[in-house]
């Protein structure tokens, strides 16, 4: 008797749970859109609230899977040749609090531009130019090459990894920036308070320029990295734990504990680390 009641109770509980789940998904709509494009396609997504994910796939088609939270929001796609514009359109003001999810599969040479206030934004395996902007969006960009990468945020966390031959420009007010194996002809990072972390070998004989106001800068590099490096913190500290060859003649005004200049191996890449009041640390990886 007890066992049968327990079984019935269990069944009721499971049924109730399934009912809640059903109610939760009833309002959602999943849409799948396909667009034929040619080489060098350009995709722009404006989605203020909700995640945007971009991956590489077919060479001639853009696949867009959108999950809409209700019928009070729609997608406005506009295509002109290989230029595709996707915008989230809220039909009523109150509907804007519910996130819309975008999942895009694009040709690997596609240029991608994403605007999402809250994010998160994830982009991977793209060889075209990447532009992403979001007030508080966390951004994760990895395994990209040969393109310009422009990322802007006020306080989101930016993670950039496995980027080669890239022109990278990152600007953040207070969000942290984490770079792992990022290299290219030009890598530039600017923050006000955001902490910057770099792990890699500063390859490609490039120019690497990291500047913060009060954010700390932490660098870890292998002993075979070839760099011509200068570090300076106006009112903060510089801590060097890497076997550089110190430079005696330099345009940098050398102050013990506040600045340092040196080379490692052939001095192939130029690395400038500047902070107004943050601490700059360089160590072996």
């Amino acid at each position, binding site marked *: 008797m007890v066992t049968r009641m327990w079984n019935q109770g269990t069944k009721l509980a499971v049924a109730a749970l399934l009912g809640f789940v059903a109610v939760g998904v009833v309002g959602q709509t999943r849409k799948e859109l396909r667009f034929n494009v040619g080489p060098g396609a350009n995709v722009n997504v*404006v989605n203020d609230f909700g995640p945007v994910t971009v991956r590489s796939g077919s060479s001639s088609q853009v696949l867009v899977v959108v999950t809409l939270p209700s019928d009070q929001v729609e997608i406005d796609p506009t295509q002109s040749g290989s230029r595709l514009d996707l915008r989230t359109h809220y039909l009523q003001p109150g509907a804007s609090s519910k996130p819309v999810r975008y999942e895009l599969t694009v040709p690997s040479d596609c240029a991608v531009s994403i*605007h999402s*206030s809250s994010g998160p934004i994830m982009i991977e395996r793209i060889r075209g130019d990447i532009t992403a902007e979001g007030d*508080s969006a966390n951004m994760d960009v990895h395994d990209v090459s040969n393109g310009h990468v422009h990322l802007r945020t006020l306080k989101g966390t930016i993670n950039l990894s496995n980027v080669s031959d890239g022109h990278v420009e990152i600007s953040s*007010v207070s969000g942290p920036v984490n770079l792992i194996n990022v290299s290219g002809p030009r890598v530039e990072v600017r923050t*006000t308070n955001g902490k910057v972390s770099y792990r890699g070998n500063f390859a490609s004989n490039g120019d690497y320029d990291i500047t913060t106001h009060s954010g700390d800068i932490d660098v870890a590099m292998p002993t075979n990295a070839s760099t011509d490096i200068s570090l300076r913190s106006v009112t903060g500290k510089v801590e060097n734990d890497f076997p550089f060859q110190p430079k005696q003649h330099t345009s940098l005004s050398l102050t013990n504990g506040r600045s340092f200049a040196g080379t490692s191996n052939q001095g192939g890449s130029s690395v400038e680390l*500047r902070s*107004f009041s943050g601490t700059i640390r360089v160590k072996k990886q």
Partner: protein
Amino acid sequence: MTCAEFQRVLPYIIDTGGNAEQEQHLRECAVCSDLVQDLRYIADQAKLLVPMEDPSPRVWEGLQKSLEREGLVKAAPARRPLLGAPAHGWQWAVAVAALVILAIASFLLHRPEAAPLSMATGSQSQPTATDQDDQQVLQAVATLPPDVRSTYEQGLKDVNAYISDARRSVDQDPNDPDAREFLMQAYEQKAMLYQMATHSGE
């Protein structure tokens, strides 16, 4: 009056004109005269981007209906502003403010070392043109969710502190290229924040 004294008050007098001493300096000093001309040119060009004040929507509706009755136009679909093409005057004003900030920052960075910048921290006690621009940015995001508004409020505080520190550094050592670079980048951070507010406020 020295160039440093003149340029300290320049943000307050560029639109309204100065007193007799300031006007005389402007007549006699080629460097300051060229600076004022350049800044006024930038401001004038930027104003061309600002649309004139829109008439009442009823005016446009009346015009539309008249043209439709005449068969000259068809009923137009609803238009939405494009990203980066703001529909409202205040958004253009914010974008213009970002351009002017960058122009001033570029001048501050590349000014001749013989005429050192001397924007003393004492000027912090007086309201500046950029304070009004900050208020306009906060108005631009006033209708957004509270967490977004607070992001912009805190961001403005942070970049303004950056600008203040960088200015002090340039004042202490006008010949330090890093100090000038910090000031330029501080202004660039602020311009970025203004631009993002313009996009978010659409």
